[in-house]
C-alpha cells in the first residue's frame, strides 16, 4: 500500500519519474518546472535510478535527444514549461509523427510577451494539435496519478503516441498538498516492461537496417498521418481502460472528464486544471442556495472526448466555458471552440458562453467564479444570451 506524504506537484512529478525509472531523461531548466529535473538529477547522482540523464543545452535539444533515445528503444522522459515547450514546438510534431511514446511533465505557464512566469494554459493549448496525448491535473494527486498512467497510455501498441501531463504553474507546482504515493514496486508493476517496438539499437544488434524519418511525399504522407490519427482515436478506447485498471488497483478511478453535480444541473461551467477545485466550492455553495449548478472538468483534451463532453452537458440549459487562454481570434477562447464543436450535433443544446480568466497567473477567487455563475443565471432567466465572451478579473 502507498503512503501519505506532503508534496508539491513538481516533487510529485520527480518522485513519479524516479519510480518509473526511465532509461533516458533529457531536460533543460525553466521556471516553474525546473525543480522536477533538479530533484530528479539528485536521484541520478544518488544512484536511485538507472537513468542516463542528459543535461542538454536547450529544450529543442531536450526533445531531440528524447526522440533519439525513444527511437533507440528507450523509455524517455522530459519536463518543461511555457517558452521551453514553445521552443520544442517543431520537435513535438516529429515525436508524434514518428510514433514515439515519450512522456513529458509540463508545468503550465503563460507565454511571452510580456514575459511572465505564472500559470495559464496558453503554452499547452498551443501544442494541442501536435499529436500528443494531453492530460490535465486538478491537484498534486492527479498530477502524480496522471504521470504514471501516461506511460501506459503512450506505450500502448494501439496508441504509440507521446503524452504530456500537465499541472498548473506555482498553484500546484509549488504548493504542498497531501499525496498518496504508490510504492516503487506498485508503479513498476503497473507500468510494466515497455511493449517491444522497432528501434535503432535492436536494428543494429540484429543487423536488420531500418530507416526512421524518411521523406514521405504526396504518395505516402497522407497515409502516414491517417495512421497517426488512428492512434489518437485508439487512445479514446485505451485511456478509460487504463484509468479503470488504475482505479481497481489503487482506488482512484479516472475517465476523460469529471462530472461534478451535473446530473440535474440547469447551469454549469467547463474548466481545466486547479481552478476546478475552487469552482467546486462555488457549486456547493450554490447548491445550498437551491441553484442547480454543476461543473465539468476536462482531464483529457487530446484525444478530445466528444461523447463524454456531449453526455455531460446535453441536459444543461446554460454552460459557461472557462478558458485560461486568450484565443486571439477576436471571438472566443480555444476551449470554447472545442466544446462548441462537441455540442453542435445535439438537437437540443445548451446556450454557450465563454469566460477568459486567470491569464499570467491572475488569481481566481471564489467571487470570480460566482460572477461567472451569476452571468449564467442571468442568461438562464432571459432564455437567451447577449454575449459570447467575457473577461473575468481584468481591469478594462
Amino acid at each position, binding site marked *: 500500500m502507498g503512503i501519505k506524504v506532503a508534496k508539491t506537484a513538481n516533487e510529485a512529478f520527480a518522485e513519479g519519474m524516479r519510480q518509473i525509472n526511465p532509461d533516458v531523461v*533529457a531536460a533543460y531548466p525553466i521556471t516553474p518546472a525546473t525543480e522536477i529535473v533538479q530533484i530528479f538529477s539528485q536521484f541520478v547522482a544518488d544512484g536511485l535510478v538507472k537513468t542516463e540523464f542528459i543535461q542538454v543545452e536547450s529544450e529543442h535539444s531536450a526533445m531531440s*535527444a528524447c526522440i533519439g*533515445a525513444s527511437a533507440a528503444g528507450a523509455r524517455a522522459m522530459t519536463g518543461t514549461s511555457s517558452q521551453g515547450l514553445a521552443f520544442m514546438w517543431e520537435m513535438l510534431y516529429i515525436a508524434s509523427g514518428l510514433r514515439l511514446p515519450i512522456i513529458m511533465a509540463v508545468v503550465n505557464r503563460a507565454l511571452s510577451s510580456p514575459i511572465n512566469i505564472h500559470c495559464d494554459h496558453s503554452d499547452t493549448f498551443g501544442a494541442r494539435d501536435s499529436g500528443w496525448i494531453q492530460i490535465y491535473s486538478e491537484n498534486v494527486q492527479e498530477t502524480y496519478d496522471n504521470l504514471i498512467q501516461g506511460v501506459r497510455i503512450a506505450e500502448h501498441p494501439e496508441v504509440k503516441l507521446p503524452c504530456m501531463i500537465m499541472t498548473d504553474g506555482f498553484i500546484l507546482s509549488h504548493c504542498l498538498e497531501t499525496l498518496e504515493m504508490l510504492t516503487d514496486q506498485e508503479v513498476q508493476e503497473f507500468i510494466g516492461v515497455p511493449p517491444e517496438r522497432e528501434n*535503432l539499437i535492436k536494428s543494429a544488434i540484429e543487423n536488420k537496417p531500418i530507416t526512421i524519418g524518411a521523406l514521405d511525399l504526396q504518395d505516402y504522407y497522407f497515409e502516414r498521418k491517417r495512421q497517426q490519427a488512428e492512434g489518437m482515436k485508439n487512445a479514446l478506447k485505451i485511456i478509460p481502460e487504463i484509468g479503470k485498471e488504475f482505479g481497481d488497483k489503487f482506488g482512484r478511478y479516472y475517465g476523460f472528464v469529471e462530472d461534478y453535480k451535473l446530473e440535474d444541473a440547469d447551469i454549469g461551467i467547463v474548466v481545466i486544471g486547479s481552478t476546478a477545485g475552487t469552482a467546486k466550492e462555488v457549486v456547493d455553495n450554490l447548491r445550498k442556495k437551491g441553484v442547480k449548478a454543476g461543473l465539468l472538468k476536462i482531464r483529457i483534451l487530446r484525444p478530445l472526448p466528444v461523447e463524454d463532453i456531449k453526455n455531460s452537458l446535453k441536459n444543461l440549459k446554460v454552460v459557461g466555458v472557462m478558458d485560461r487562454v486568450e484565443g486571439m481570434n477576436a471571438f472566443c477562447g480555444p476551449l470554447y471552440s472545442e466544446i462548441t464543436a462537441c455540442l453542435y450535433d445535439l438537437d437540443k443544446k445548451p446556450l454557450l458562453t465563454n469566460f477568459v480568466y486567470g491569464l499570467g497567473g491572475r488569481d481566481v477567487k471564489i467571487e470570480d467564479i460566482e460572477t461567472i455563475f451569476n452571468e449564467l443565471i442571468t442568461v438562464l432567466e432571459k432564455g437567451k444570451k447577449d454575449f459570447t465572451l467575457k473577461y473575468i478579473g481584468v481591469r478594462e
Partner: protein
Amino acid sequence: MPNIKELAKRESRFVSGHRLCAGCGAGIVMRQVLLAIDKPVIASCATGCVEVASTIFPYSSWKIPWIHSAFENSAATISGIEAAYKVFKREGKINKEIVFVGFGGDGGTYDIGFQALSGAAERGHNVLYVCYNNQAYMNTGIQRSGASPKFSHTTTSPVGKVIPGKVQWQKNLVDIMVAHGIPYAATAIPGRWNDLVNKVEKAVKIEGFKFIDILSPCRLGWPHESELTMEISRLAVETCIWPLYEVVEGKYKLSYKPKEKKPVAEWFKLQGRFKHLLLPENSNLLEEIQKEVDRRWEELLKKCES
C-alpha cells in the same frame, strides 16, 4: 588502415539508387565514411540534400539503422541514441559495440545546428560528427551559409553591380570545435579517400566527441563539371584553400603538404560561383583572397609546428 582492395571488399552501407546529382561529393563522403567503420553503426542525419535524396519512402540507401528527425538537431538526436545505448549497456541488455555517427551539411552544422553540435561536444557524447560541407544551402537552391567562402556567388549573396558575392569569410569551425576541448577534430576531402578513411577509422577508436569537416563539392551549386568532383576537392587542398589536418587532444598535425602551393585562381576557374573573380576589374578581390589564404596557411603551419 585497410588498402583499397580490402575497402572494396567491404559491404557498402550507403548504396546506389539514391537521387543525389551525378558527381555529388556528399554521396561519396557517406560511402567512404561508412566503409571506414568495420562495426555496427547507427547514424542520425540532418535535413538536407543527403537526407532528401537517400530516403524517399519506401526507398532507402542506408544499410544501417538511420534516423532523420529535423534540420538543426542531428547532434542532439544522436546524443539521445548514444545515451540509450549507454543505459542498455550498463544494464547488461546489450554487449555489442556500436559506433554512433551524426551527419549534417554545412547549414545543419555551421549555422542552424551549431547549438546542438556545441552542446553535444561539450557533454562529450561518444559520437563521431561528420559535416559534409558543400559550402552553401544546396538543398534549398544554393543560399549562402556560414561556410560559404568570401566572394562566392550564392542565390542570397549574388554577385551584383555593387556587391561581389558573399562579403564575409567562412567561420573556422574546426578551430571552434577544438576550443570545446574535444579529443579529435579533422578536415578531409573525398578526393583523398585514404586520408579520409584513415581519419574516420582513427576517430571512432577514440572515446568522446569527434568532429570531421569534409569538403564536399557540389556540381550544381559551385557549379562544376560533374566528372571533376574528386579533382576539384584535391585542388582545394593543393591551393591551401582547404588544408588537410587533424587535431588530436588539441595538437595540430598537417596531414598533407602540397609539393607546390597552387594559386587560388586555379581552384576558382573550375567553378561558376567564382567566375567574377577572374575578371580583370576584380583582380584586387582575387588578390585579397590569395593574401588571406596565404596568411591562414602560414598560421596553420605554425600551429602544426608548435
